[in-house]
């Protein structure tokens, strides 16, 4: 008798035990993909439509930065309840919108308001959640944007399910889910990637690794070589990109979206970036990271990088910069005007959309609130 009688390789059943695929093609790039400051920028500029693309990305970045600034100001003025700024991450935020086609779906989390605005959703509607007057101010079906998700990574399986449904219907819709570095620790992130791989769903996951989950750095979050390497365990493609290089993020995301759209499977993209502001206006980033570290990343500001390299390449000039700045100021003006109008909210709307039809119990409670409001109004009148 030899051990060969019990040879594992001979008994191995691919369906039951797994296909034993070669992981090498799934591995992310060893270095994050960069375009700005490399010869690839010239090639991009010279490609058909290249210059227009680069100018458009620059314009979106300028407008995006202004959006973040204005939203932060509105928070200081008490116009927003809270604002998790994506300042420093604008390259990722705007590339999300430029990489998707109309009809594709975006699944953002709470820090991704700029991505939502870049996708075409009205800024005031986008910020409704953070203003505090409703949970989701926009119609998800108007621009194919799911509500901003607050529980981390819980929107990732939704993207998988939507992409799966689209594939079942023979439609070419791609879903893009946005997750942060902290969110990759959540079980839902794991389950979403696993389902995506098994179902071969046309979905792309973009992890914006901004270094911190509130105060906890990635070293305490994950021991993975990179977050992009997590893809390999699910049999899907991993990509690593410089998240402050808007051109690189656009190109890598666009390739990922096409990869998914053409049935070649889901993709996990890790964009290495940095949150220049605190977690929210209620956070004190000085308690967990050094000023020197922030300065190093300010030197890699995505907007500065873009402007410098596109000017050097002769893609943009003063006129482009001025035009973008004017568009940004226009947006800021509009935001100021619209947010200075106090929203009129109907308390009775509390009962409007709990079920398709209110239950008898909710009807009773609505009547109770209506009576309270009537009594308040009567008291007000007597004064």
């Amino acid at each position, binding site marked *: 008798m030899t051990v060969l009688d019990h040879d594992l390789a001979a008994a191995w059943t691919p369906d039951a035990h797994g296909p034993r695929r070669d992981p090498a093609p799934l591995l992310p790039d060893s270095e994050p993909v960069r375009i700005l400051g490399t010869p690839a920028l010239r090639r991009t500029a010279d490609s058909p439509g290249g210059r227009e693309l680069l100018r458009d990305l620059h314009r979106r970045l300028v407008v995006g930065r202004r959006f973040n600034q204005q939203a932060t100001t509105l928070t200081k003025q008490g116009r927003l309840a809270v604002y998790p700024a994506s300042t420093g991450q604008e390259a990722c935020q705007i590339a999300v919108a430029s990489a998707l086609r109309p009809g594709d779906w975006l699944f953002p989390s709470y820090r991704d308001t700029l991505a939502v605005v870049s996708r075409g959703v009205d800024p005031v509607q986008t910020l409704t959640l953070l203003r505090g007057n409703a949970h989701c101010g926009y119609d998800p079906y108007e621009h194919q944007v799911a509500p901003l998700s607050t529980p981390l990574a819980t929107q990732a399986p939704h993207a998988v399910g939507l992409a*799966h*449904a*689209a594939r079942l219907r023979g439609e070419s*819709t791609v879903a893009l889910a946005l997750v942060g570095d902290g969110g990759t620790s959540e079980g*839902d992130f794991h*389950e979403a990637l696993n389902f995506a791989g098994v179902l071969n769903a046309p979905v792309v996951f973009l992890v914006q690794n901004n270094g911190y989950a509130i105060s906890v750095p990635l070293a305490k979050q994950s021991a993975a070589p990179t977050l992009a390497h997590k893809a390999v365990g699910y049999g899907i493609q991993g990509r690593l990109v410089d998240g402050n290089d808007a051109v690189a993020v656009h190109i890598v995301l666009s390739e990922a979206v096409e990869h998914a759209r053409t049935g070649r499977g889901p993709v996990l993209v890790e964009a290495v970036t940095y949150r220049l502001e605190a977690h929210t206006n209620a956070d004190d980033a000085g308690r967990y990271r050094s000023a020197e570290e922030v300065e190093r990343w300010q030197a890699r500001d995505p907007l500065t990088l873009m402007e410098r390299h596109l000017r050097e390449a002769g893609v943009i000039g003063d006129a482009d910069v001025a035009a973008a700045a004017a568009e940004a100021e226009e947006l800021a003006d509009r935001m100021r005007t619209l947010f200075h109008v106090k929203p009129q909210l109907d308390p009775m709307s509390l009962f409007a959309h709990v079920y398709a039809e209110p239950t008898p119990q909710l009807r009773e409670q609505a009547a109770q609130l209506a009576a309270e409001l009537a009594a308040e109004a009567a008291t007000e009148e007597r004064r």
Partner: protein
Amino acid sequence: MTTAAPPRTQPPRTATLASALNRALRDALREDPAVHILGEDVGTLGGVFRITDGLAAEFGADRCLDTPLAEAGILGTAVGMAMYGLRPVVEMQFDAFAYPAFEQLVSHVARMRNRTAGRMPLPITVRIPYGGGIGGVEHHSDSSEAYYAHTPGLHVVTPATVADGYGLLRAAIASDDPVVFLEPKRLYWSKDDWSAEAPAPVEPIGRAVVRRQGTSATLLTYGPSLPVCLEAAEAARAEGWDLSVVDLRSLAPFDDETVAAAVRSTGRAVVVHESSGFAGVGAEIAARVTERCFHHLAAPVLRVAGFDIPYPPPMLEQHHLPGVDRILDAVAKLQWEQ
């Protein structure tokens, strides 16, 4: 030489709850291409309780999908499918195995309509086999209805008869709101007169039904405890009590009207369920009945429930589950001396 008469094919006159549920799923898949079943082992195997038996073979693996073993992933995927216009029916394998999906259920499924001001309803049915009495080892016998009934935005429904198994499941799948559909697993193989050839019409969700009309006191119950209550009502005749038995069928929304009328007609009430009593559905029912029927009551509303313990091992479960004697003991305490 005699010729045997050809066998007459007659529709079966009795059916099990399991077969009625299977039939409801089959009819829903056939009538609406948007209906998709997904869950663990629901495809090739037909589910561990065989409720999806034959459906993958008849409608294809995409319509009755074997998923990875991950409940949050299953329900989260169903959310995305529903967003895209499908009508997912999720099977959770067992009550206690549904807990990983709790966040998806509470944070998304239950409130997506509300979050989006009615723009994004999620017509998802979550089927969960629940309750004990089948000799299951731990984590196979939980009664989890209170967790779900406490969550605004969900309908929570539980059939106790074969006809309701069909009718309520069809209603759940047809509902534009998410429905947690709790299947009393110890009744899966119970039989009633019911013909799959002429299934009962779809039941509206939210209506209780009086299963037995009595005069002395009213038992309020649902799901796996209904047969026990009906048995108790029969046994009570020997004590001179004529008991009403109300099958709630829907825990959310709650049929206050039927329940209050049934309690007022007898003036005494006992709520019976096998899940733990503390902060359970029975506490809510007792409070609602008291609020609505106080001047009609001759005694406090009592509860007969499982003890406030983790579900016991199978060799001890008969001491935990409310039985006929415990129900009759409660009825005896309804201050008859007055």
